[in-house]
Each structure stands twice: as C-alpha cells, then as structure tokens.
C-alpha cells in the first residue's frame, strides 16, 4: 500500500520522510487536518526536532494533543520537556516572526525545527499577498536552514487562482486526503489516488511542472493506485501547451490498473505522452 493516509477519515498510516520539507496540506475536514498534523508531529519528535505548531484556539479536548490517540502520552511528554510547543497563531504570523522562532530553537541546541501553521485561518483575516510573503519566508527557511514546515489549508477556501499560488509555493511537496506528490531527482512522485475530487490539484501540479521544465516532465506512477477519467483529462489539459511546444510528459512505471486505464483511454497514444514501464 502507499504511504498516503487512509482516504476520507483514517489516520495517516506512516510518518516517514514524506512529512519533511515545505509541505502543503490540503484538508477537507478537521479530523483529516488533525490526523495529518499528528503524523507530522510524530515524525518531528522521532527525528529529535523542536516541533512548534500554531493553531486557532480550540475547545478543551479538541487540540491535536487530545486526538492523537495512541500518541497522546508521547506528545504530552514532549510538551513537558519542551520538545513540542503550541503557539498562538498571532505569535507565529507576523512577518519575520518565523525566523526568530527558528533561531531560538536552533540556539537552544535542537538540530532542526518544524513549524506547523493553520494557514487558511490567518490568511482569512489578511490579504493574500501578505500571506504569500510569509509563505515565501517559510519557503526560504526550509531551503536554507534545518527547517520543515506543514502549511495547512482548508480545501474549500482554495479557489483556482489561490490553489495555483499555493502549489507554486510548495512545489516540492503536497498532499491531500487521497494523494501525495513530491519532487524527486527522477521527477514528480505520485502516491495515492487521483480522481474527479482532487484532479484540480493534480492539474495545477502538472501545469506548474510543465511551465518550469525544459523538454520533459517525468511522473513516477509506481505508487499511484488509481486514476479516473477526470485525472486523465486533467493530465492532457494541463500539459497541452507544453506538449504542443514540443515538451514530453513521461509516465513511468504505472501499476496494472492505472496502466489499463491510460491505455484504454488512449492517453499513451496522445502526442507528447510517453508511457514507460519498469523502474521509475
């Protein structure tokens, strides 16, 4: 099975390196957000990071510490000895505040820092451009310092243009309830399922990848479990300009069921699409 957490309502099934880096989380429900946040925190504590999460005030029993189930005791111990800290959003979000938080943690001797923020809540109260400035700061910290960040956005608040901005800002790593995408040395690695419900996210990723690529966009499909007609449509739509300009989209190592869908629909016959088996 893939690393993506259980579709719909399940807790994340793993807490490996897929949670590191500057990660965009598109969630559709509070339980989905919390289960992802818990896995992300677990990953950080496991690595010895200083883990800081900023979120809106929550009623008793509704914070990530309360709903972490099996990890509750572990998390409580980490809070007690200062490895895990909650932060009010207003402390996290002033421009420049993030760098200060990082500096403090590194100065305290932690090898690396993790920052999580309930981003859509803050951006709702400010302008999009100001919010994107902060995202740029976080992105820079993730690239230049020992920092990982989990930026949580409620899916319904992400309109098409905003989605484009957010994906552009997190082009190395993104996940929603069914799909995770990560940039790697051999292309974009897709893990999970793409269907009519999240095909717009997929399209945005393809569009951005093809806009910034020269000649070839490679998609590693080895861990992709499902693609429907809508996903195939978006693949073709989003890459059309790129392919018409001579670019090629290479679909690598699809599983049998995905391979069948692509071939039945003739996606492999479309100009500029190459479907190749074997190792990614």
């Amino acid at each position, binding site marked *: 099975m893939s690393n993506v957490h*259980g*579709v*719909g*309502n399940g807790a994340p099934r793993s807490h490996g390196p897929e949670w590191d880096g500057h990660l965009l989380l598109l969630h*559709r429900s509070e339980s989905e957000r919390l289960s992802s946040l818990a896995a992300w925190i677990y990953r950080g504590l496991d690595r010895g990071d200083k883990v800081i999460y900023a979120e809106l005030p929550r009623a008793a029993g509704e914070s990530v510490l309360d709903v972490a189930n099996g990890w509750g005791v572990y998390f409580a111990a980490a809070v007690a000895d200062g490895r895990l800290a909650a932060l009010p959003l207003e402390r996290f979000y002033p421009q420049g505040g993030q760098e200060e938080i990082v500096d403090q943690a590194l100065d305290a001797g932690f090898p690396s820092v993790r920052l999580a923020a309930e981003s859509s809540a803050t951006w709702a109260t400010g302008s999009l451009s100001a919010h994107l400035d902060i995202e740029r700061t976080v992105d820079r910290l993730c690239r230049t310092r020992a920092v990982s960040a989990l930026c949580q956005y409620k*899916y319904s608040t992400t309109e098409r243009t905003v989605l484009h901005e957010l994906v552009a800002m997190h082009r190395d790593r993104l996940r929603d*309830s*069914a799909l995770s995408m990560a940039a790697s040395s051999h292309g974009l690695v897709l893990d999970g*399922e793409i*269907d*009519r*419900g*999240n095909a717009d996210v997929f399209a945005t990723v393809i569009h951005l990848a093809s806009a910034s690529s020269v000649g070839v966009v490679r998609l590693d499909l080895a861990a992709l479990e*499902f693609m*429907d*007609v*809508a996903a*195939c*449509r978006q693949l*073709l*739509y989003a890459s*059309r300009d790129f392919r018409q300009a001579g670019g090629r989209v290479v679909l690598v190592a699809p599983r*049998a*069921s995905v391979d*069948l*869908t692509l071939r*039945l*629909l*003739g*996606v492999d*016959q*479309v*100009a500029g699409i190459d479907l190749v088996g074997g190792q990614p």
Partner: protein
Amino acid sequence: MSAAAVTHFIHQGLFFSSPEELLAAALPLLREGLAAGDAVILACRDEYAALLVDAIGPHPRITRLPPVRVCARTATAIEDYHEMVAQRVAVGARRVEVVGEPNDFGANPDAWAECSRFEAICNVTLAMCPLTSTCTFDVGALPEPVIKDLASAHPFLLTPAGRIRNERYVDPATFLRRFAAGPDPVEETSPTVAFAAVTDLHQVAALRNQLRAALDAHEVDLPIMADVVAAVQELVVNGLVHGRPPVRVRLWTPPERLVCTVTDAGPGFDDPVAGYMRPDPDDAFSPGSGTGLWLARQLCDRVETARTPAGFTVRLITSAPAART
C-alpha cells in the same frame, strides 16, 4: 456510386438453409472484394470456410479465424473490430470483408440476446469503419424468434441475387430498448451491500475504499475488482456531475457474477447507444463526452441505463470467477 467509393460500414445478414445457398450469396461478394483490393476474413465454421476458400482459390489477402465468439462484452468486441480493420488497412487493404458466423451457443437465450444487441450496436459504432460484415445464420439451426430478432438488426440482407435493403431493419436505439435485459433477478433480493449515499465528489474516494473492501470480502480477483471500482467511479461521478445527488450504489454478489447499480436522483437520459463510441483522447475527453460511460462499458460485461421511479440507474453486470486463485 461505384463500389470502390464505399468507405463506410455495410452490415448484412446472410440467412441460409444449405451450404450451397451460403456459397451462392457470399462468393460473388468475396471475389469482387478481393479483386478491388479488400482483405477477407473468414470467421465461420471450418467446413464453410474451406468451401469458400476452395471456390475462390488461395489468396494472400484471405485470413481464416475461428467462428465469431459471442462476446461476453459487446463494447470490447467493437473495439476489437476497429483494431482488426485498422491493421488490415494499414498494410494496404482497401476495406475489410468479414464473413462471420456466431459460435454455437446452444439454446441459451441470454447469449442470443447479447448477440442481437451486439449486432444492433455495431450499426452505430462501426458506422465509419471501412468494413463489410456479412453475418451468416443457419436458419435450420436457430429458433424462429431468434432469426426474426437477428434479422431486424441488419440493415441489409445478402442473397444469391445480391445485397438488398432489409425491410425489417429496426434502428439500433429502438432495437436496444426492445431488447434491454432490464433488472437482473438478483436485484429483487437484498443487496450484499448498500453503500452510504454519496452527495459530494469528495466522498467518492471513501466509497471506492468501501467497494474494494466489499469485493475483497467476497474474494473477487484483483483485476476484476480494479475494473469494477474504476467503472463505478465513473458512473458515480456522472451521477453527481450530470445527474442529481444523492447517488446510491448497491452491490449484489450472486455466484460467479457481480451486479452493481448506481442510481442518482436525476431524470437521466434515454439513449441506449450512449457510451459505445470511442472517445478521442486528442479531444481530452471533454466533460459530458461520455468517456466515463465508455470506460465502464470496456471494464464490465454489460452496462445498461434505465429510468426508474427512484431516478436514473446504471446497472453493471460482470462475471467473477468463484474464488481468488
């Protein structure tokens, strides 16, 4: 118009009561076709194929195939025809002449009905194909009603006197409405699983997982499971996007088969040939182009649509071997 100018599909029935009648009708057609550069495919019983080849003489553009197997899956059989013709045309054939005969499938009325449906649908889906399909039927070996049904699915009849327009031909949509299989008897029983109604596109992923779990519990082979899940996905999305929520999925698991219904609350449509025309990937499967229904038809043995008091139902039926190997 000369014969050479014909580029479209010609579908004709050849109802014969003796091998002599078969030869008398088919030979002129085949000789003329070969002379004009056509490829000939003989997919009738060996005895008749041998008679035809003996009469014509060996020819590099004649291929003999086993008798036409009555397709468990009409939609894929149509794609096979497209491919067969494309291959012959690619190597220089002007068009393809097929003389086919359905395999003997005894007295199974379901199989005959499916054969009739295929004969009707191909009038639409192969319409632009450079193919002449001559379907031969031994009137002595078939029940009278079956002959009558089959005859009405062929726009032309081939007789020893040549091709004539079939006065009893019924247009495909009318034919299919008349021969719709309708609800499967198992639908009168409680479903194995009635899944929670879906009202939003974002719930479909969870539905897929529930469907997989149900099929897994019945030890359905993984490729069949993947096909059914992919087919249901498209029909549920269609129900949500083109129909009206809620969309309800029900699954029955009678021995050796899977029966699944997808019902939305909308008025649906009445087009029994929808979803048989191969979508064009260069057109990027624009929404509403029927691509999802086409895919479902490729992945399941039978897909039927019906307007019901509950809304619009799409029924999927597919064979599923008894146990996972």
